[in-house]
């Protein structure tokens, strides 16, 4: 079995909360993070939602850290560039022999950007780790997203797992025949893997059309219709939380670190 975000979304402790509310909380937090003029509010979002993910939803910290590390490490790389290319304010540090310098303006911008990305990522992971995709489909249907898009999303979702399983199968059969021994072999084997996957994808596509035809496909896909009601308590708690973050972002907007 594969350890996927979807697996945790299915088994976490916040599963009984309405998916609509979780999605609302996540999206609103992302908006607040990206629009906040200062870094305090996004950091508050990052800390509080991480706490919610780890303590309320009981996602294993190792898993959470690993997933968080991927986007945040990308953000770090771009922040380093921004640190050097943005000017303004007194010079804090100069690289010897090179025309590169860190200024106070650059440092402030870098911290703000990092905080925003960090907070936004936490909010996104909050949704991804606590809301199963199947519930999101039902929600999308309820809010009137075109059926074509939902059908497509459902098919893609279903096939992600078949794709992973096929890739894993090919990889294993290559490893069993010592496919990844030396570097050059690895390159070779990887090429074969990708090629075989491509062919299998086309096969699968054809089989899918057959399977749908055999079941009288006429252009409609069913969408699971279950929904969870929003409890007033959790709704009010969400509003209070978002209000607090908004207030903090207004209050601390002009705060500069350096």
């Amino acid at each position: 079995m594969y350890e996927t975000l979807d697996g945790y979304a299915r088994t976490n402790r916040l599963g009984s909360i309405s998916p609509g509310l979780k999605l609302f909380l996540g999206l609103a937090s992302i908006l607040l993070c990206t629009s906040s003029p200062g870094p305090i509010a996004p950091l508050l979002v990052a800390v509080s939602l991480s706490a919610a993910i780890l303590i309320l939803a009981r996602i294993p910290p190792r898993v959470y850290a690993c997933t968080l590390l991927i986007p945040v490490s990308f953000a770090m790389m771009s922040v380093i560039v921004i640190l050097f290319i943005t000017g303004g304010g007194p010079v804090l540090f100069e690289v010897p022999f090179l025309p590169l310098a860190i200024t106070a303006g650059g440092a402030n911008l870098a911290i703000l950007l990092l905080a925003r990305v960090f907070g936004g990522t936490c909010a996104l992971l909050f949704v991804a780790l606590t809301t199963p995709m199947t519930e999101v489909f039902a929600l999308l249907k309820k809010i009137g997203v075109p059926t074509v898009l939902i059908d497509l999303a459902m098919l893609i979702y279903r096939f992600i797992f078949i794709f992973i399983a096929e890739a894993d199968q090919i990889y294993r059969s290559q490893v069993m025949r010592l496919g990844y021994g030396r570097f050059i072999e690895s390159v070779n084997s990887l090429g074969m893997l990708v090629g075989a996957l491509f062919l299998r994808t086309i096969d699968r596509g054809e089989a899918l059309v057959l399977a749908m035809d055999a079941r009288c496909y006429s252009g409609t896909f069913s969408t699971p219709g279950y929904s969870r009601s929003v409890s007033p308590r959790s709704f009010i708690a969400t509003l209070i939380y978002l209000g607090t973050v908004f207030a903090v972002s207004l209050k601390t907007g002009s705060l500069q670190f350096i």
Partner: protein
Amino acid sequence: MTPLLTIENVAYTYPGGQTPAISGVSMEIAAGSKTALVGPNGAGKSTFLLMLNGILRPDSGVVRFSGRPLAYDSKSLRDLRRRVGFVFQNPDVQIIAPTVEADVAFGPVNLGLPPDDVRRAVRDALDHVGLQGYEDRPPHLLSGGEKKRVAIAGILAMDPEVLVFDEPTASLDPATSGEVMDLLDDLASRGRTVLLSTHDVELAYRWADSVILMGRGRVLARGAPEEVFSDPDLLTAARLRSPALLALSNELAHRGIIDRCPPPKSMAELVDRIERSISDHASDRGGHERR
């Protein structure tokens, strides 16, 4: 009784194929029958089955459903596919929706049933295959046997008259394949016509009331399982072996230990017959001694 499905002299070659996958195949499937299509790998079983609901169109020959030749326009095909349900060998090919409920509902929704009827059809189909409570599960977290049941439920939800199974027990463990076969028995006993392909002669012998033996794209023989499976030359030609139970009882009958007819369908039946013939033997001898 008029046959439900009639196949007349059908031939098919896959695009790009050198030799025909099947040729000169004719047969009749009676309504309410349990038919097993038995043959080795590459005999053309799957090709043949795919013609019964119009997924493949024969190059020559005719397939008739309730006396009328199949039409291949999309409206007639839809109608045909509602009445002839096809369960694929690999459930992963057949299951297309992200949850069990959505997948089973796929057929009924596309038939244009109102939501309440869809819900009822899904519930009945899941009850039938014993998967109540699996509605919200995603298919990738199910076991092979559970996936097979979901695939069967997806077809049952359309309430077809004929059920076609391509290798229903392939890659299932003995207990699960036993359960699937019980399910097929149950479906057949409710008046549905059930057709399956297999190379498991034991399974075909026990389950079917009519066996069609195929080999190299042709029909080699057809008839009651005990007849077809008692002909060793025929089975050798088809690269199959006689079912152990039938071979044993034929051998016992040949040596005069039990009566020849009718061949037993289960182990218990065979043992009963041996026991009876031993006790007959003993009472005969007892009579002699007393005299």
